[in-house]
């Protein structure tokens, strides 16, 4: 059976789509809005919509369906509620054997970076974080967001330029 014949309506196929894409989808929306709750709600609604339309969607197209649906839901949400975007602070997880002063400076540096990332234009932020945190290639990101690879690279570049520019200002 080719993967095109797989029915999305079959629970094992539906679950495999979930296991493969749900986390990236959640991160994608989270990077846009900075709200874990909203991101999780949108992921659930997108998968429910996938289920409702399961008979009409080819297995190999399920990923792009999900991302398109989630993006539209996000746009509706933002337009509807004028969501205040708040990017959650994350702490670095690597252990280092540097001096406490160095570690503190590292931490402050990271916090500054996070504030600047939160202020980046949404389009740059989602590309940047999908690449650095989710380790997606520019080709993958282009497919998820629906842009050319070149456009993705330009956004990456601009994000970094802004980060360097702003980090000096704080």
């Amino acid at each position, binding site marked *: 059976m080719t993967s095109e014949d797989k029915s999305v309506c079959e629970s094992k196929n539906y679950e495999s789509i979930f296991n493969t894409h749900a986390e990236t989808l959640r991160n994608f929306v989270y990077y846009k809005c900075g709200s874990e709750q909203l991101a999780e709600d949108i992921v659930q609604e997108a*998968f429910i919509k996938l289920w409702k339309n399961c008979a009409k969607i080819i297995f190999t197209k399920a990923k792009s369906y999900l991302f398109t649906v989630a993006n539209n839901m996000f746009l509706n949400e933002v337009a509807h509620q004028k969501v205040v975007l708040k990017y959650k602070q994350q702490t670095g997880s690597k252990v280092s054997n540097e001096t406490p002063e160095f570690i503190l400076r590292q931490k402050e540096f990271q916090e500054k970076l996070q504030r600047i990332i939160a202020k980046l234009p949404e389009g740059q932020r989602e590309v940047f974080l999908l690449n650095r945190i989710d380790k997606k290639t*520019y080709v993958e990101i282009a497919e998820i967001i629906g842009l050319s690879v070149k456009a993705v*690279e330009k956004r990456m570049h601009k994000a970094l330029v802004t980060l360097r520019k702003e980090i000096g200002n704080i």
Partner: protein
Amino acid sequence: MMEEKYDDTFLARWLANDLTEEEKLRFENSAEHQDYLQIIESVDLMEAPSFDKKSILSSIQQKQQIQTSTVRKLKTSWLYTAAAAVVLLFVGFSSMYLNADETFETGFGEKITVNLPDGSEVLLNAKTTLSFNENSWDTDRTVSLDGEAYFKVKKGEKFTVATTSGTVEVLGTEFNVHTHDDDIFEVKCHEGKVKATTKTQKTAILTQAKAFSSVEGKTTSWSFNTNDPSWIDGESNFMEMPIKHVIEALQDQYEFEFIAENIDTTQRFTGTFSHKNLKLALRTVFDPMEISYTFKGEKTIILRNAK
């Protein structure tokens, strides 16, 4: 200004190791290089918030049944030179179910899996209709069935399968129900315990590997091997089934029109047929019954007495 020295994708390509040797060297010797390195090293330590796959998947599965219903139009299709009376029955059935909240229907040769609001699963064989009311599911686990389905019921409140030929009640178990209108009622228990009641109130309590059927008034009980292939694996099996219903089952899988000339369609058949090979299926059903089958055109088979 840095932006003028490099093109607008430079830093992206740097991160992806996609620079020419010359570009790379020039960048590594620049004042900005160290700044960018420091930024990237710090960002790469960041993590996305944790993601609890299991719990999110299960809340999706619970919600996906609480949706506005999609009712599919029932197709009417005429299988053999059947009487108008049978057409009326079919129409009667369809109007009864069009008002149910959630209805699923399979076509010829089609099998689907339906997830119920509590996580129970129902596998539908071809030409089968299943409906239930998702709003009252919490307090009343009842489904209506016409056709054939395999149920995997999660432990919980009583679970009822209502058909026009009988009712099945279980608590949590796996079983197979095969019905057709009000004259076929067959239940096979694969696991757990099942109570089957015919429309004439005859009851059978079935434990694992026990089966019961009431076909046109005649009841039969038997034991079967739960490891034997079933319609789920592509093989339909029958115990003492009037051949006219076996012919219908063949039609449900293969979508051929069978025309029965002068054969006694009430003769009973015990055996199996494959869903994957029409010629083999015809042989295994009709050869033992001494019935000949001839193809007429693309979609019709004529059955005659070979005796």
